[in-house]
């Protein structure tokens, strides 16, 4: 079927792609060549320009310079619609599914199906495709009823139904359990066996090694190298990706944990949808230790920290802070008593349009020296902001700059600075480095370790297993709102953790164990 001519063996060629955004160059003369029928990994740090480059190929972004070749022909792609016509499909990290639609309705969306009852006329072909590639999913279920893995299968079905020949997947395993990720790999293999091409965006080195035939490494908007996966190794890829040795300078000093600061007993919390999100959960965090919570996102992490911060009502159980029951304490009181919170969703804790200075007083505006009886002390506000900017090396033109103008790393640093300067006894941190580059990640990690050294109890939620394992003194695995097991820094076992994240393994004693001294 495929012609043997050399230029026809390339499914996609991107040449000299430049994409600028106000203030940043996302792609700086990036190149990419993808062969037909291969799984091609696009590897790079956050912000390296991988997703941006693929958005160019998919017609979401319009390149400022450069050429796009698809199946040996030079093309201009104005919109996703053009891309689809060319046989290109893309599955974004955040699924683009209509939650209230059924699976079938999602699959046929945007296509010229029969006008009346379009999903019914499409049903046989969709079911046949699902059968052929092993995509198990109920065609009449509504999306919100499906798990992340099932939703991803709907996305793949959507692409296949459109006769996709080149499928782009952006960080496809980030929402999956290790087991689901394995299943995805099988599906992808079946697809390439049928002659399809897969471009796989990732920042996980192991995944590249496991899945791909070839890999292109990107850094700072440029493509650095394209290699045969079989002829490279994790170490080489890591160096190419980061541009230097990846070993973090983590100064993880030994700290002897002190008294328990946070005790959660049989906690039950309900999600926005009214379903149980945290189920009979108990845990304990002591002063000077980091308790990591690993797990696939959406397993109750958000509800857990929000309940501890007082932002979500508790339907059962107790939260003890420094020995006192704070289950019913309003959020303001918890802040005043020393609970700091860096949420995973940053903009929940910042006001984008307000200045850095005004964002820095969000937690202490009500008390001296910032807040007097009625008025705010403008001078104290300024001093406070300047101190934080200096001490935490926040890069900003000045304290009056709207915080949304700062880079992602600096926004996160400012947020952490605000929470840490309160010297909280308990610091709740969720996804502290998501979306940050290596340098920023390193700074944030070291800041968290400083907190631990100061004697704060840190509860760390992270989807990034690497991060959770690197920072935690103890690591608990969360699945469907329950703790499946707990490890110390010495007993952490990647395989067991993976099984627990998938809900396939549970420690016999799910009782919270006090952490041994690290």
């Amino acid at each position: 079927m495929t012609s043997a001519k050399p230029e026809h063996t390339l499914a996609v060629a991107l040449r000299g792609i430049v994409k600028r955004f106000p203030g940043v160059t996302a792609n700086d003369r990036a190149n990419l060549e993808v062969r037909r029928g291969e799984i091609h990994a696009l590897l790079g740090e956050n912000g390296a320009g991988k997703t941006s480059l693929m958005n160019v190929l998919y017609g979401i972004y319009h390149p400022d310079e450069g050429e796009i070749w698809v199946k040996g022909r030079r093309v201009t792609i104005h919109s996703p619609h053009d891309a689809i016509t060319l046989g290109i499909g893309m599955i974004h990290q955040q699924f683009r599914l209509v939650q209230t639609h059924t699976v079938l309705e999602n699959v046929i969306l945007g296509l010229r199906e029969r006008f009346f009852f379009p999903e019914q006329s499409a049903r046989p072909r969709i079911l046949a495709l699902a059968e052929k590639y092993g995509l198990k999913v109920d065609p009449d279920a509504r999306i919100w009823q499906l798990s992340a893995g099932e939703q991803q299968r709907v996305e793949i079905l959507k692409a296949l139904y459109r006769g996709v020949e080149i499928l782009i997947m952006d960080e496809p395993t980030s929402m999956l359990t290790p087991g689901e990720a394995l299943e995805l790999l099988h599906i992808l293999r079946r697809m390439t066996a049928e002659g399809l091409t897969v471009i796989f965006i990732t920042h996980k080195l192991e995944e590249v090694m496991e899945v791909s035939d070839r890999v292109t490494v990107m850094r700072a908007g440029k493509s650095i190298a394209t290699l045969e996966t079989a002829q490279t190794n994790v170490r080489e890829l890591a160096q190419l990706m980061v541009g230097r040795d990846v070993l973090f300078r983590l100064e993880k000093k030994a700290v002897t944990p002190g008294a328990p600061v946070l005790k959660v007993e049989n906690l039950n919390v309900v999600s926005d949808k009214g379903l149980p999100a945290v189920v009979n959960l108990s845990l304990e965090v002591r002063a000077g230790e980091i308790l990591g919570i690993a797990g696939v996102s959406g397993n109750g992490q958000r509800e857990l920290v929000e309940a501890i911060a007082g932002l979500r009502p508790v339907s059962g159980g107790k939260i003890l802070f420094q020995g006192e029951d704070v289950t019913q304490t309003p959020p303001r009181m918890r802040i005043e008593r020393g609970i700091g919170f860096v949420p995973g969703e940053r903009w929940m804790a910042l006001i984008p349009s307000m200045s850095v200075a005004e964002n820095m007083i969000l937690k202490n505006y009500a008390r001296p020296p910032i807040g007097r009886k009625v008025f705010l002390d403008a001078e104290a506000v300024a001093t406070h902001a300047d101190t934080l900017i200096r001490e935490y090396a926040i890069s900003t033109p000045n304290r009056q700059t709207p915080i949304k103008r700062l880079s992602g790393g600096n926004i996160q640093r400012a947020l952490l600075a605000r929470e840490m300067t309160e010297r909280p006894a308990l610091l709740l941190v969720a996804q502290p480095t998501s979306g940050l580059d290596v340098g920023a990640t390193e700074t944030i990690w070291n800041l968290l370790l400083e907190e631990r050294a100061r004697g704060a109890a840190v509860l760390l939620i992270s989807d990034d297993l690497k991060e959770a394992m690197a920072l935690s003194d103890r690591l608990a695995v969360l699945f469907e709102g329950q703790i499946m097991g707990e490890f110390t820094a010495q007993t952490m076992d990647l395989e067991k953790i993976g099984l627990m994240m998938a809900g396939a393994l549970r420690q016999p004693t799910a009782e919270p164990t006090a952490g041994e001294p690290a």
Partner: protein
Amino acid sequence: MPDFVAGLLENLLTILVTVVLAIPAAIRAGTPLLYGTLGEVYAERSGILNLGMEGMMIMGAVSGFAAAQTTGSAALGILTAALVGGLFALIHAFASITLRVNQVVSGLALTMLGLGISSLMGKQFVGQPLAARLQPLEIPVLSNLPIVGELFFQFDLMVYLSIVLVPVLWFFLYKTRLGITLRSVGENPAAADALGVDVTFVRYAAVVFGGMMAGIGGSYLSISYAPAWIEGMTAGAGWIVVALTIFAMWDPSRALLGAYLFGGVRVLQFRLQPLGISPNLLNMLPYLLTILVLWLSSDQAAKRRIGAPAALMTAYAREER
């Protein structure tokens, strides 16, 4: 005893007859609301809140009357009203979809604009009776039935059209390709966009359709209901329509119920007046009922976890970082 029972029965019968006799009037009074609500349901399903319905209805009322009066054709009047309503909605669409301005303020501005232009435009028509009256539609057999025919089959075309539109628009929304597309744009524009759906176009189309429906609803007031042009004759109907959309939970089939409920209240206003209740207090009823309905549907929506279209009131832009 038998006397008492007879008296009771007679009273019940009187009430029943009164209610039944009031139904046609309630349907008439509810018809402009029905048109408007159906239009707003579609606009909001696409993700755009149109608070300018009042302006579009009043523009429909005045332009419909003007066209009908000058051409002598009620049909041309209604058509003009639809066009003018759609044109007005186009402004809202441009402001809220292309320019992405605050949808509440834009809608408010269009209501002011509509009230202003309509008063100026309609000045020459004040006090004129409409020459081109819309005649009741003769439906074979049904219209000639005794009592029932007189009660329920003596409406004009616009009433029947609005009733027919309810199942048609319901079916279109849930069972057709374009309906699925429309709902997806209101729920998750990014998803629809990624599949090549022209989000901007769909939203423009839905908002303009909503405006056309508002225009037709307004023209029903001036061409059929009154039939005359009275300055400010919509009297808040456009706002009630927005409330009814929430009450209808964005479902065309429920719009019918809400519109006639409000029509019924309108009729009640007139029926209660002879009892000596102040007309001013009675005039408060539809507005108080609107608040009550909003209260109840917000409560109900919270309980049943049925919400507005997820992307309602959020402008969509693809290339934003």
